[in-house]
């Protein structure tokens, strides 16, 4: 992994389309600004990994289980 030191308000270019700037540093939190083309999705790593993991998990759902799910969402009763 390439490691670079940057100060507040400095930035890094990744290729000619993506720019990462250090907006602010307070204590142990760094605010990062990201400029990227729309077709480059940007995610917080832990959220990205969690959704990836959940998608993997979802694949274990068996078609047989779905067949057994009849009547789970009955129309809600009238208020009367």
């Amino acid at each position, binding site marked *: 992994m390439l490691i670079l030191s940057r100060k507040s308000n400095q930035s890094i270019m990744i290729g000619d389309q993506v720019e990462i700037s250090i907006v602010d540093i307070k204590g142990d939190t760094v605010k990062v600004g990201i400029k990227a083309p*729309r*077709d480059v*999705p940007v*995610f917080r790593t832990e*959220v*990205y990994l*969690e*959704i*990836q*993991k*959940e*998608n*993997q*998990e*979802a*694949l*274990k*759902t*068996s*078609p047989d*289980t*779905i*067949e*057994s*799910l*009849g009547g*789970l*969402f009955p129309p*809600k*009763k009238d*208020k009367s």
Partner: protein
Amino acid sequence: MIEIDSKPFGKVQIDQRQKIHFPYGILGFEHLKEYALLDAAQEPFYWLQSLEVKEIAFVLLNPLIFQPDYNVELDDDELQELGVEKPDDLLLFVIVTVPKDARKMTANLQGPVIIGREKKLGRQFISNDLRWKTKHLVIQEHGDAGKQSAVC
């Protein structure tokens, strides 16, 4: 009609209009971009079936059925990307994970799947709303929502 090989039903005929293109794939499966939306054996569930790998199929559910407060904020660019011009064009789903004990099924409200009906384009978004997590207990929250509306 075209024939596809599906995880839930084996070989089935589908209408061309059931095909959905996911330009970015589904997170973790970015290389798979072609899917079909199939009715599941039970309403109101759907299958999002990969047309490239038979074993890749996700169960989808409209989250508003059990979580009426749910919403996803998309900006104009994102809507345009899905070819959505009017609210009717937009289909909102979440991926459901159903364990053997089906009553413990969970829905991923943090990673909703949005489909533009007109252009047949789909994308999995990541919600920045901290209320929405990857594992919401569907049956339980459906019950809670019912109670609230009964009190009103």
